[in-house]
């Protein structure tokens, strides 16, 4: 890892002592006096008090002359004797005490873990990804808790965890997890290599890692799936993907992902397959609608009046009565207004949020139509498309869709329906060029893999999904064996 400095114990203690919350508590056992150095903000003070008390009482009954003797009386486990400076630097930040003899600060020392409560939220309800049925367990900001949750469900030693330290200032632990025997070693090696090659200062969130290690930074599309739901991560792991999470972030990123992974919802798998497929198709249709609805309106009203059927013609013309702007400007204003509303709504304190939402959504819209600044049909279209951009279960994809609408509207305003066709072309070519961890993004549609298509647009029944998708090149193809076909009797032979 870059930015390595050679630390010595003295230099560590000196640099720590610059902060006022790095304190040293003495303990004298008669014969010797020891010093406990620690960050008081990272330590459970009560636990420390208990420890010192226990040591005091022990010192009264027994002679404690050296460090080892002291450590024998420490009622905690996880002690480390003679750690190297690197380890000390690490562990002090995890809530460990550094113990050394006053007379010999450079000499042997030990680390005693007394970690404090984490100061994290207690509930682990997911707040970005809801589902109506199924477990609602989500991850929180503590890495160990998260891994604990994962291991609780996948309690097999094949779930391998590799820890990598990332960040020159933050030294965050980044966990790379995969199921050995299922995930392809190439994928794991690729991911590990990329993570180890990161040169960054502070990693706030796994989403940052996502961008740093992604194959292509010039795309609005997310190349790894970001999720805070446990069932999603587990599903990704068992199909052969690799999961990464960083300390302090509740989000896992899993890769390699395809475009269709972003339209999967765990709910699809908890409902019967017919319903799951139906909802998935509605989602995909919703996304297409969201991308193209406003631009169709602009194209038809500006260039192609002859395409409008006569039944709609009167309505559309009447709705635009007295509107001073061209359809393109109208649509642009409305779309930008919706974006303003969304951005403001995301940051408003919850008490103001509701009322402003009503003001923004309803009153502004009504007033704009009454003042003939826009047409009411367009308001319906724009608000519907804003709504449907959120049908994708993964937030990052809905961002991408919201963004992509603008260039498409622009192209529609310049070249009408041909502009939309050009936009579709650009989009498809762009998608064909994207790679996620080296794999094509639009698999299984392109490159065509017929066997994997069954779980993309529709969700097939569990009788059919016994094998893993092949594009991830898993080491073991079979997930489970579906129930053998029941021999069907003729209807009068029940």
């Amino acid at each position: 890892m870059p930015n390595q400095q050679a630390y010595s114990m003295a230099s560590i203690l000196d640099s720590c002592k610059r902060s006022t919350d790095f304190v040293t508590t003495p303990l004298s056992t008669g014969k010797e006096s020891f010093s406990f150095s620690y960050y008081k903000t990272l330590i459970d003070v009560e636990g420390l008090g208990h420890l010192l008390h226990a040591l005091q009482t022990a010192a009264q009954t027994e002679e404690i002359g050296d460090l080892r003797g002291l450590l024998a009386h420490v009622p905690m486990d996880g002690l480390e004797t003679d750690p190297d400076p690197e380890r000390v630097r690490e562990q002090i930040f995890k809530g460990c005490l550094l113990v050394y003899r006053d007379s010999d600060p450079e000499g042997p020392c030990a680390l005693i873990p007394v970690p404090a409560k984490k100061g994290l939220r207690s509930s682990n309800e997911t707040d970005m990804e809801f589902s109506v049925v199924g477990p609602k367990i989500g991850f929180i900001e503590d890495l160990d808790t998260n891994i604990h949750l994962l291991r609780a469900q996948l309690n097999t030693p094949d779930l391998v965890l590799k820890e990598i330290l990332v960040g020159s200032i933050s030294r965050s632990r980044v966990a790379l997890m995969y199921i050995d025997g299922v995930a392809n070693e190439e994928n794991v090696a690729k991911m590990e290599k990329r993570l180890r090659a990161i040169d960054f200062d502070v990693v706030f969130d796994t989403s940052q890692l996502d961008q740093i290690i992604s194959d292509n930074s010039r795309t609005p599309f997310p190349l790894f799936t970001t999720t805070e739901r446990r069932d999603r991560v587990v599903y990704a792991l068992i199909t052969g993907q690799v999961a990464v999470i960083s300390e302090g972030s509740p989000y896992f990123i899993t890769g390699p992902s395809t475009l269709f992974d972003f339209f999967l919802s765990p709910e699809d798998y908890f409902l019967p397959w017919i319903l799951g497929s139906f909802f998935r198709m509605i989602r995909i249709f919703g996304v297409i609608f969201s991308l193209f609805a406003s631009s169709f309106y602009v194209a038809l009203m500006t260039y192609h009046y002859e395409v409008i059927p006569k039944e709609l013609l009167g309505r559309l013309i009447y709705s635009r009565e007295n509107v001073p702007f061209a359809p393109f400007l109208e649509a642009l204003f409305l779309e930008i207004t919706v974006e303003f509303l969304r951005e403001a709504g995301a940051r408003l304190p919850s008490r103001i949020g509701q009322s402003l939402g009503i003001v923004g959504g309803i009153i502004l819209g009504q007033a704009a139509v009454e003042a003939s600044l826009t047409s009411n049909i367009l308001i319906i279209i724009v608000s519907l498309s804003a709504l449907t951009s959120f049908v994708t279960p993964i937030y990052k994809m809905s961002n991408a869709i919201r963004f992509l609408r603008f260039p498409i509207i622009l192209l529609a305003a310049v070249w009408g329906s041909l502009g939309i066709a050009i936009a579709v072309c650009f989009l498809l070519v762009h998608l064909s060029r994207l790679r996620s961890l080296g794999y094509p993004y639009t698999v299984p549609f392109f490159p065509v893999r017929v066997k994997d298509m069954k779980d993309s647009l529709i969700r097939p029944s569990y009788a059919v999904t016994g094998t893993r998708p092949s594009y991830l090149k898993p080491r073991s193809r079979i997930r489970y064996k579906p129930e053998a076909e029941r021999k069907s009797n003729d209807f009068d032979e029940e």
Partner: protein
Amino acid sequence: MRGRRNTVRRVAALGLLTLAAGGCGSSQIVDRIALVQTAGYDRAEGHIVTSLQVGEYTDKDKTKIKLLESDSTNSFDMMPQLNLETNKPIEYGQMKMMLFGRSYAEHGIGDVLKILSRDVKVQSRCLLAVSETTALEAMRATSNTDDTLFLMNMIWQNTKTANLKGQNLQQILYGYHGTGSDIFLPYITINKQHRAQLGGVALFKDDRVVAVAREAEVLYLKLLSERSREGSLLVKLRASGGSQPYLLLRVLSSHPKFKLVSAGPVPSIRIRVAMTVMIKSISETVKIENEAEAKRLERVIKRYVETGMSDFIAKCQGLRVDPIGFGDFVRTHRRGWDSVAFYEAYPSMKTEVRVSVKLLQSGIID
């Protein structure tokens, strides 16, 4: 190298944007144009009067209709001439109905048909019709309805549920360019209440009106040329003292079958029409009490229709027009089609019409 490539890309992107902004310029924003929905051609004393019906959608429930007219010496510059009278540019991409005055149609509508077939903006679903007087008058008669497409809807609903055989521009051009049949158009008349109504079918020879088929003939035309599932027929029965008994029939389904008995020199065609009808209303004096009566009635109807159809075909032959499409039939059933020879022999063509009528009992015995 990287830096140079990036600057090339940036310059290209900028160039694209400016060009795009300079862009298109042919926008026709839908509420800033005058949409023509019905158009008309008339001939009056050597010059041509063109008229347009344009809809104005300023009111939520009603559409105002504006009627524009202008004079010209030829059939070609209708749009630019009328453009001189409007505050919004005229666009005819939504034109759904075109009317010809009788005098204009008698001189030939071939020019206009050529214009329509060449022009990409004109819809293939556009309807054409001939007005008994002038197109302008027919359009005026519909001005007080709220529908710019009144005439079009009138013709269309009669095609769907009544006696008219439907023809949109595509089918008319099919017949016009084709060598095997002649075109025909709906015939619009003005009734005593000054309202437009369908008064029959105008028969064309090439592109000129030569005759009008009325009443039952319109139905015969439809029954002879296509399968139909609708239509109504008034049968006059033999008067036996007292008043004239009538029978109103509803055609439920009908299916013509042509058979070429001999192709030349004088062609001979056998026509079979299988009809299923239902009695809609019947005069008091006619009774159907049993099977035998029903069968007798069927025979009466059959003879009535056969006579009517034969007369109609004879009329067409006399006029040398072929709206039913006998030419097309012979063309597709014999090798070596020669339209000139066929139409030379057309007036003396032998046809034999046989109708089989099936009367559906409605279950209520008189």
